[in-house]
């Protein structure tokens, strides 16, 4: 408790300057006159402060006065946006602390749905439900009436807005992939790997055969963008369900993937890969996104990562920092995340169409909630989709009937500037606040090519096409994934990836180690959860 308090104090000390800075921003902003606010003038007469926490928000407000998009939002809805900074590494901690100290922002992002924490937040009145009548916000209403979001109400009320990543599950196909150094493959005379042995051999060769030709033993086989989510999928050829961490049906019963006997092969292979030097020896002590950095430094043969245009451009940004003589797009190749299964089939990631949700503090008044939902409704509208594609009309593009002409600014290299760099509040917050909208990255449009560069976009798009056509989605019953039972929600206490890491780095027989770990899961409520889930599947007929 002592430590917790100390952290709370530290966090608050950190939050304070942020709040001050935010406050200064406010002072500099001219209050919009009634005429400017247009439609909102009479409806949104009172100016409201809305505090928001969102994953990238730390980069959203470098200079509030030079961001036309922020000005547009603030005057259109007569609000003042206050940022409360979180990062991917600490958002869970910060929300807990803020909740305990009554300091939760009005709007915050988390991936908490159906966990024990989610239900206790509802029970304890920390988050507020959406109004029961959403007809004033048709775009929000639409999101909550989709097939895979409709069942998410609790006693008839919605306590969050799911942040849609894609419009259909197939678009997840490159969410897990392995990006490899094509130039190294060629140099070492390796063919595209298919079987486990091929993959193992490829990673080992990257690590041991001096592919960068500097005469030193200083290269890495396979690394990860984030060990927690990108490690297990590399063994998906041996057990597909590790790719998306889903429940699997075995002997007529649903069990979490880590309870399956097939995990034995997975831990054996991962141990072998680590022991034989195929996997980055430092993988267990890496922090999220360290992998980007490592790959960029040109010492890594392969990285387990998303292969979406956005993720690839992050990888390219790191590459450009260190590698000057080779172009990223010409040096890499995208491979399926794992090898072929014994029957020859290969699998790809799939999931429900959203990742993470927007939550609203119970302290948000009805008036403020209305304002927030107006903003969300706008961020989910076709109008905003057009912005995401083309930017601001008149400035970034001209519209003539159905024809869009890009007039966007270019940088010193003659490439179009990204919307995120011109409008940081869009890039760091609003672009993804209500929905990730990643399907736009994949769309075959001129702007998608402009945003990510023709070559990089094509690389990603080809991989998507290939994966969708050639690989099978992990067979997943999403109804079981979204199902809530009390014991199932408590399984969040199990961190199977951490336990697999322990086995990989251990010295005893991996299968024996793993068996003991799984036995230990029973004391964390595994059997009870399996029973409850299968009873519910029977009763509600979820198994079809």
């Amino acid at each position, binding site marked *: *408790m*002592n430590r*917790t308090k100390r952290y709370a104090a530290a966090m608050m000390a950190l939050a304070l300057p942020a709040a001050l800075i935010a406050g200064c921003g406010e002072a500099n902003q001219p209050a919009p006159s009634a005429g400017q606010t247009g439609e909102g003038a009479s409806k949104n007469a009172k100016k409201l402060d809305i505090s928001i926490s969102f994953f990238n928000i730390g980069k959203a407000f470098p200079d509030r006065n030079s961001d036309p998009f922020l000005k547009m939002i603030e005057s259109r809805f007569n609000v003042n946006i206050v940022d409360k900074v979180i990062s991917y590494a600490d958002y869970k*901690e910060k929300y*807990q602390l803020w909740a305990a100290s009554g300091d939760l922002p009005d709007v915050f992002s988390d991936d908490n749905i159906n966990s024990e*924490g989610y239900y206790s937040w509802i029970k*304890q009145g920390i988050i507020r439900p959406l109004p029961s009548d959403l007809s004033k916000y048709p775009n929000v209403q639409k999101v909550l009436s989709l097939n895979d979001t409709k069942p998410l109400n609790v006693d008839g009320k919605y306590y969050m807005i799911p942040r849609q990543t894609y419009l259909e599950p197939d678009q997840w196909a490159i969410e897990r992939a392995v990006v490899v150094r094509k130039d190294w493959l060629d140099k070492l005379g390796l063919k595209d790997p298919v079987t486990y042995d091929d993959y193992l051999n490829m990673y080992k060769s990257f690590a041991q055969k001096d592919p960068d030709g500097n005469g030193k033993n200083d290269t890495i086989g396979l690394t990860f963008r984030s060990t927690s989510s990108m490690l297990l999928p590399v063994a998906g050829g041996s057990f597909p369900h590790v790719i998306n961490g889903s429940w699997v049906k075995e002997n007529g019963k649903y069990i979490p993937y880590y309870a399956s006997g097939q995990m034995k092969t997975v831990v054996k292979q991962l141990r072998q890969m680590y022991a034989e030097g195929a996997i980055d020896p*430092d993988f267990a*002590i890496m922090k999220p996104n360290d992998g980007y950095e490592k790959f960029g430094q040109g010492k890594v043969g392969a990285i387990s990562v998303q292969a979406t245009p956005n993720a690839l451009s992050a990888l390219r940004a790191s590459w450009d920092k260190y590698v000057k003589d080779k172009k990223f797009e010409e040096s890499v190749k995208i491979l399926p995340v794992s090898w072929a299964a014994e029957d020859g089939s290969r699998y790809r990631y799939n999931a429900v169409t959203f990742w993470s949700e927007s939550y609203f503090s119970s302290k948000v008044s009805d008036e403020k909630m209305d304002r927030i939902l107006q903003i969300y409704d706008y961020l989910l509208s076709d109008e905003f989709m057009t912005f995401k594609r083309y930017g601001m009309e008149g400035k970034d593009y001209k519209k003539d009937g159905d024809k869009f002409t890009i007039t966007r600014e270019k940088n010193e290299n003659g490439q179009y500037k990204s919307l995120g760099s011109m409008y940081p509040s869009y890039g760091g917050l609003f672009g993804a606040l209500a929905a990730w909208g990643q399907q736009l990255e994949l769309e075959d449009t001129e702007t998608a090519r402009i945003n990510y560069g023709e070559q990089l976009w094509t690389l990603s798009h080809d991989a998507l096409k290939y994966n969708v056509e050639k690989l099978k989605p992990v067979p997943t019953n999403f109804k079981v994934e979204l199902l809530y039972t009390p014991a199932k929600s408590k399984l969040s206490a199990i*961190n199977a990836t951490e336990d697999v890491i322990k086995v990989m780095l251990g010295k005893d027989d991996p299968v024996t180690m793993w068996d003991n770990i799984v036995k230990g899961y029973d004391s964390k409520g595994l059997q009870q959860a399996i029973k409850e889930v299968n009873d519910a599947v029977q009763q509600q007929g979820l198994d079809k």
Partner: protein
Amino acid sequence: MATGRSLWKQMAAHKYLYLLALPLLAYYIVFDYIPLYGIILAFKEFNFAKGIWGSEWVGLANFREIFGLQDFWVAFRNTLIISLGRLVFEFPVPIAVALLINEVRRTRLKQFYQVVYTFPHFLSWVIVSGIMVNFLGAFGVLNQLLVLVGLEKVNLLVDPEYFRGLIYGSSLWKDMGWGTIIYLAAIAGINPALYEAASIDGANRFQQMLHITWPSLKSTVVILLILQIGRTMSSGGGGFDQIFNLYNAAVYEKADILDTYIYRRTFAVGSSYGTSTAVGLFKSVINFVLLYAANKAAKRLGQDGLY
């Protein structure tokens, strides 16, 4: 109660001086005593909406829950072992360093050593852990040296066998100089006449150290030892920051202390504040008992205790 009355009289006579103590008193009440109220959370199921007082009483349920967890006992054992290790490996070093620095005759050189030893204390554990990862990682300096002399690479940070050694070693590197300050201050307070007399009697430097410096230092050592024992369950100063920044899934079984375990449990699982408080209270009670016992023992052995 004659003394009571005379105390009041005395205080009344010096009332303006006592007034000066008021802000300090207020400080302790506000920041150290009022928060004690939070301890009742250990016996409650915390509900954010109802607040601490309004939440439901659950008796000892929080304690039963944590005592039933296997991981809790692993962390408990590790806490004891790491604290004991700190006592054995870390505690004596600053004393030795202080004695050695004291033997350096030239003042300039003495100050130089002191600064060199003290400096690492001002780096945070986040930075030190970053340095250590770079130094000890697969392609770090250590492994490059090992390869150069033809030895196998080692991976100290993910090997449970070596982890505790790293913990002791790194906190020695960081804090041994800082720890000497209090001893050097005690040494500085020794009357120089004692040394002069001893040297006239023919005592050499070593004998002077043994018969003058050490006896004068002993009571300080005992007090610091008692304080260190009183921190056993918190694994000494910096225990959380250090271990939290250095450990990983592979070494939990040897490295996880109660503080880090509770931190993970509270934040990763989002489990109740009640159980976290229960562990905190459990720790504090053990710490208190140890502190009390150590103090008592010290007094029995003829030393000045803390109180």
